[in-house]
């Protein structure tokens, strides 16, 4: 439809043909897409696949790794590095004990504030804090999003080692090309 005023009749026909061709190309592409399998992952249903796991590298609910030999039964030394590096200021630790006995008395993470940037996990000198693939974290009240020491400890019992930082980084971008649909 550009340059309408000085187009000749033949040029106009050419424009129409070009437009019709581009519409056909578009229809072709959408038709191809129609018959391709969907990229969507169905939200796991309990009746469907109970053992469904998110892709490696998924950052879900938090956990503190347990260590039976340390006071408090946790690896955490309450060095407050995670609390200080957190950009959202969502970690609040109350430390207790001196020297090698130092451990958290209370460990609060506000999951509603957290942006899952992984900095706290990365900074942890003893690999005590981690994020797990648990994805069902929604609640009906914001207070319930605050994780306490007990909750973190309970979750940590299921995960003896933290998720690998490298793995979490690499796998976020290296989904197999056959599984992705580029266009």
């Amino acid at each position, binding site marked *: *439809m550009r340059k309408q005023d000085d187009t000749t009749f033949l040029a106009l026909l050419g424009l*129409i043909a070009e437009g019709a061709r581009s*519409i056909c190309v578009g229809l072709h592409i959408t038709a191809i*897409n*129609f018959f391709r399998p*969907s*990229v*969507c992952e169905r939200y796991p249903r309990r009746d469907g696949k109970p053992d469904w796991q998110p892709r490696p590298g998924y950052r879900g609910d938090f956990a503190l790794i347990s260590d039976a030999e340390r006071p408090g039964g946790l690896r955490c030394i309450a060095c407050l590095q995670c609390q200080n590096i957190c950009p959202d200021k969502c970690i609040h630790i109350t430390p207790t004990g001196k020297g090698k006995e130092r451990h958290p008395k209370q460990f609060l993470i506000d999951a509603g504030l957290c942006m899952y940037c992984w900095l706290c996990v990365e900074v942890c000198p003893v690999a005590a804090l981690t994020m797990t693939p648990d994805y069902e974290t929604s609640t009906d009240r914001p207070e319930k999003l605050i994780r306490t020491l007990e909750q973190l400890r309970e979750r940590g019992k299921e995960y003896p080692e933290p998720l690998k930082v490298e793995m979490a980084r690499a796998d976020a971008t290296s989904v197999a090309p056959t599984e992705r*649909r580029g266009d």
Partner: protein
Amino acid sequence: MSPIGLIATWLRALLTGWFRAWHIPAVFVDILAWIVGGVVILLMITLIALILIYVLRKVAAYIQGRIGPERVGPYGLFQTVMDALKLLQKEDIVPAGADKILHTLGPVVFFFVCTMGYLVIPWESQATIARQVDLNIGVLFLLAFSSLGVIGVLMGGWGSNNKWSLLGALRGAAQMISYEIPMLLALVCVVLMAGSLSLEVITEQQKALGLLSWNLWKPWLWLPMILFLITAAAEINVTPFDIPEAESELVAGYHTEYSGMKFALYFLAEFSNNFLVGLIFAVLFLGGWSSPFGHPDPLYLPEFLWLVGKAMVVVLFLMWVRWTLPRLRVDQLMALCWKLLLPAAFVSLVIVSIVGLYL
């Protein structure tokens, strides 16, 4: 006689008998028949709209690489039913400062106009309970009522006391009135070749050899056919031409301020319009109720099934286009209509007239 025609005749005979026994004048049989016919048509429109909304969402999902509704019922089949139930129990909000009468009448008029189109569609070769007479000005009737739809849109947009609604309604009015003209000329081409304004006659002429005698295969009707598809898409506001609703610019256009059943009426009317276009296209170019395998139908299927099936194919094509093309700008839309489609319609009218003279 088709099964539906048989049932209709039987019901009529039964009612006539009863009414005679109860000493009620025979006129009331007719009145009851009209009411029943109307209810049947309304139910059918609702059902078709529900199905079309589901199909539309699924087609959109598949084209965009998604899954679409799948939770409610098997394959999400009851999703639209649940949506309709939800709309039924929603609060009906009339905005402050709105013209209450216009605000209420808008969706009613729009829906009424949409349903009127269904009256002249020749569902079967014999008269059925829903359509007892063959209207000899069928095409004219359709055009008249499709142009009345603008009033419903304008009423809703003006009565809402909202700038988005008004902008949408004005755009809609401009678009529908403009595209009415090339659409009329495209239809006139078909009417010229058929020599009749009756949709029944146009169908009858295409039934002889099944697939081969469709208007689709007549080269001089290709231009009117394309013109009709484009203008009809504009007339029912589907996506390349959905500027009256333009979500990204106008919230929801003329039905921004509608909620509950009034919104549902607009929604329903839109989808029934969509299907009506499919029906008209099927009647004009795809042989209407006639079987594609020749006349009489070698498969012995009810004739209205063929019509509905053909209309569904057209509707699916429109959906396909809908999820392919981006929306036109307002000035592009008007330029397309007045500078391209209208001259093309006149050209095709001349071609068809010449062919009609010498054929």
